[in-house]
């Protein structure tokens, strides 16, 4: 960061804003968080609760030959234990999303008979204190018979590779061929075919600062669990847990309040939550589970590692891109906890930002003896977009063309929008060329030639790189059928309720589980605009409770969708409430039609006679507590629930064609790096990030998401990696070895924004927040520009740059 470390440029306010939407209203969540009064899951305590600690596998692959918990259970203050055998007796394996062979694996919430990665939970121990639970875990005896491990996905299908899941008869979990357009014609038409043998996208994740956790209570009388948790997608956890535990979803109550970051990494804690539930029932006491940092790194939600092999790109000499063929090999780790959905999610952004029409991608996902992968900010699209951007820069280098020009020549143009991609996704709006111009302006691109020369004089190498993200948001869950045609999911939904309570309180309940995205604030902005009232009069409940009637099948906060699904639900419910207030006032005023009424000053009045005013308080009181004499046919409850359902069709399973998400926000990043060729050390000396997420309800919150994703990108490309040794030991199991950037690591940042409102969403908004992939590529491209060496990996620590220069 330099003296003036951030510059915000918003060159094109699309319209002059009236009301709250569009304003950078200060967040209402902040007061409690700034005073240490947030309620995070580990803050919750219950009388008599026991602390849970997991005994974890020290081996990447081994048979379990004996488990003896007696010494641990004998310790004073230890309440009890749970083993895989007990889990298997009490639950069914988790439902598998995959078709065969992945469909055949049997996944329980504790290891059964075998361990498949270092850190896999084997036994759970519950004790009176955290410390005791941890100490007693050391007394659990587990005998293992170690097996050979497979760590490199490229060897997972070798004839002699150790097999993780005998039920799947090999390490292949899922495979699918995607082919659109006319590849043969494209390659026949090409002047050149550029071949790229192998590109590698590395394994890392966003490491939210708060680890996973839960406080689970079991109500024996009604046989119902209350799960206070920081799981960010309770809808998904519920459909995984209910069938496994053989109970209806009414028995599983999910409650969240403040969540210390999620980034997708807190979606797949359902196995641990099942263990907590079983122990709460077995031991008849509340169970508190909080991961230690090392537990998180060893076992939770690594991002998908992916290779792109044998890539062939059909291009014209002038840089026109026609199409490509590639083979994607994806490393799922030991279990399919959300996978193989990554095998289709990438297809939301099949062509990236470019107009090529002929694309073939052969996707294969294999199991390895590493932690299971699951969504990580930019889930599966990040890998694919990094690949497409890599292709652009490699093509530009091969053809000796300017990467800026190649991009501009091939970008989908503003006038092409809405644009149907080769696989039927419909990019709703955007202007990528303009975003690029703006980003280049922010780093003063015209000065680059001079700066490069000056750097050279100093013995340094300067380079500029471009990266992009298409932040596809609001999933059509019908895409899961491209993975497994048997699945009965499609569309999407989110719910909100808005009510006017007895003293006129406007109370809003969301189905979402925010982790810092400011939903309480932005929801209030939308409500206050519709009810034409003060922002302070809108009370948005913090967090989520599946017993609040604001829970839909896809409720949660994930996959860039709140600005569409969440806020559209809020809008719908508030409009219902508004209409009811009109109806009620019309009746109270003795048959005044709605057109003659208006909302103002926290109430409703007759336009022509503002003295005839019914404050919201009166409305709430009349309906809730003073309703005698109202017309019998007055159908008003002032308690409105709306489920927003985006317009989707089920994609065609045969052709793998259809619209997979509703909105396509975009980010364009440009990085300037300066490399010391002697050591490989490099610094990002300038950085620009331009965002377009349609209409922004709260620009400051949007910018915060851009910044956060940028920082994660910088961390990923330079420092962050989950690297394993050949025996399957994780080399970066804590923040000591896994270096997360800190304040001094941050480059100067300039942000900019344009607004291309979505024509498909009720508020013109698009989901956003997952723009980090753009930054990973921008830095890779800048390194390539500076060194002249093709960058083939998404992870480029100084050592690797040094090696590139040798």
């Amino acid at each position, binding site marked *: *960061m*330099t*003296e003036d*470390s*951030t510059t915000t440029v918003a060159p094109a306010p699309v319209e002059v804003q009236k009301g709250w939407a569009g304003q950078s209203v*200060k*967040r209402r*969540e*902040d*007061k409690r*968080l*700034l*005073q*240490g*009064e*947030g309620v*995070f899951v*580990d*803050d919750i*305590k219950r009388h008599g609760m026991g602390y849970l600690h997991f005994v974890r596998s020290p081996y990447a692959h081994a048979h379990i030959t004996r488990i003896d918990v007696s010494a641990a259970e004998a310790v004073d203050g230890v309440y009890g234990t749970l083993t895989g055998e007990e889990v298997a007796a009490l639950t069914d394996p988790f439902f598998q999303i995959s078709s065969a062979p992945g469909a055949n694996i049997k996944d329980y919430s504790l290891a059964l008979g075998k361990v498949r990665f270092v850190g896999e939970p084997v036994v759970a121990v519950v004790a009176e*204190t*955290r*410390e005791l639970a941890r100490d007693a875990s050391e007394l659990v005896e587990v005998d293992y018979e170690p097996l050979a491990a497979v760590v490199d996905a490229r060897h997972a299908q070798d004839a002699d590779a150790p097999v993780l899941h005998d039920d799947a008869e090999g390490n292949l979990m899922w495979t699918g061929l995607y082919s659109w357009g006319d590849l043969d014609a494209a390659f026949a038409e090409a002047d050149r075919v550029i071949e790229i043998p192998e590109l590698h996208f590395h394994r890392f994740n*966003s*490491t*939210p*600062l*708060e*680890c996973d956790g839960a406080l689970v209570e079991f109500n024996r009388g009604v046989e119902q669990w209350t799960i206070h948790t920081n799981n960010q997608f309770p809808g998904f956890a519920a459909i995984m847990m209910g069938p496994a535990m053989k109970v209806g979803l009414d028995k599983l109550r999910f409650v969240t309040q*403040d*969540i*210390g*970051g*999620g*980034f997708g990494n807190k979606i797949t804690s359902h196995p641990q939550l099942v263990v907590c539930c079983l122990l709460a029932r077995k031991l008849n006491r509340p169970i508190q589970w*909080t991961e*230690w*940092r*090392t537990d998180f790194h060893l076992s939770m939600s690594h991002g998908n590692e992916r290779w792109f092999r044998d890539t062939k790109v059909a291009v014209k000499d002038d840089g026109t891109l026609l199409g490509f063929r590639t083979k994607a090999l994806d490393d799922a780790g030991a279990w399919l906890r959300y996978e193989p959905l990554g095998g289709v999610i990438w297809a939301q952004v099949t062509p990236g930002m470019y107009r090529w029409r002929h694309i073939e991608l052969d996707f294969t996902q294999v199991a390895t003896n590493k932690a299971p992968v699951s969504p990580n900010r930019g889930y599966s699209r990040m890998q694919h977009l990094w690949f497409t951007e890599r292709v652009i820069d490699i093509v530009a280098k091969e053809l000796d063309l300017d990467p800026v020009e190649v991009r501009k020549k091939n970008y989908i143009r503003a006038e092409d929008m809405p644009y149907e991609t080769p696989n039927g996704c419909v990019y709703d709006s955007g202007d990528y060329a303009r975003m690029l111009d703006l980003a280049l302006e922010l780093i003063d691109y015209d000065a680059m030639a001079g700066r490069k020369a000056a750097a050279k004089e100093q013995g340094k190498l300067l380079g500029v790189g471009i990266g992009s993200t298409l932040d596809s948001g609001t999933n059509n869950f019908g895409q899961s059928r491209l993975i497994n045609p048997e699945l009965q999911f499609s569309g999407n939904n989110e719910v909100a309720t808005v009510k006017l309570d007895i003293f006129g309180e406007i109370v809003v309940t969301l189905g979402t589980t925010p*982790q*810092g*995205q*400011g939903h309480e604030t932005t929801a209030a902005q939308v409500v206050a605009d519709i009810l034409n009232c003060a922002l302070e009069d809108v009370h948005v409940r913090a967090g989520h409770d599946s017993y609040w009637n604001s829970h839909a099948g896809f409720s949660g906060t994930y996959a860039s969708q709140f600005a569409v699904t969440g806020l559209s639900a809020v809008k719908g419910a508030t409009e219902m409430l508004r209409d009811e207030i009109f109806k009620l006032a019309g009746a109270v005023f003795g048959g005044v039609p709605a057109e003659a009424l208006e909302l103002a000053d926290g109430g409703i009045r007759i336009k022509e006679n503002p003295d005839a005013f019914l404050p919201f308080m009166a409305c709430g009181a009349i309906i809730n507590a003073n309703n005698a004499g109202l017309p019998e046919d007055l159908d008003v409850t002032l308690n409105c629930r709306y489920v927003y359902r985006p317009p989707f069709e089920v994609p065609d399973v045969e052709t793998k064609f259809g619209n997979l998400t509703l909105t396509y926000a975009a980010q364009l990043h440009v990085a300037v790096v300066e490399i010391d060729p002697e050591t490989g050390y490099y610094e990002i000396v300038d950085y620009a990030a331009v965002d377009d997420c349609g209409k922004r309800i709260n620009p*400051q*919150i949007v*910018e*915060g998401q851009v*910044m*956060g994703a940028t*920082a*994660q990108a910088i961390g990923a490309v330079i420092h962050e990696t989950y690297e394993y040794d050949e025996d399957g030991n994780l080399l970066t199991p*804590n*923040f*000591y070895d896994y270096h*997360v950037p*800190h*304040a*001094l690591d*941050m480059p100067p*940042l300039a942000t900019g924004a344009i607004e291309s409102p979505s024509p498909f969403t009720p508020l013109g908004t698009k989901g956003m927040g997952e723009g980090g992939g753009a930054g990973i590529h921008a830095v890779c491209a800048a390194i390539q520009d500076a060194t002249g060496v093709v960058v083939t990996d998404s992870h480029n620590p100084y050592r690797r740059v040094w090696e590139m220069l040798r």
Partner: protein
Amino acid sequence: MDVSVTVNGTTYARDVEPRKLLIHFLRDDLDLTGSHIGCDTGNCGACSVIVDGVLVKSCMLLAVQADGASIETVEGISENGELTPLQQSFNEHHALQCGYCTPGMLMSATALLRDNASPSDAEIKKALQGNICRCTGYWNIFEAVKAVAK
């Protein structure tokens, strides 16, 4: 072991397991859950508190080591429930998202500004270097602290 500490002006005497970390003592035994835990290794600073005037990571200290000490935590920095200028500045500059790192950030910034009311940009960043934030990228945190520095 018997431990007596004063936290935000209130004195607490407790019998404590010798192996208990100060952060767990504050959170589990004293119910002061404002200070957080983000790592096992002293790297993240979510647990930062001020002990006898010195900024420390409370996961790097045993509770028994704090016997007799006077401790300040995030719960103690507001005055009469009102946000201090530093806290307000965090709100103004959108210096927090999930808010999990925030208590530690506030304690580090508080310690800095007490020692040095007019820190340079580099001094601000250095003071925050021991605190990890995974949400904001630090730019806005830096701006928030800078805005209240003299």
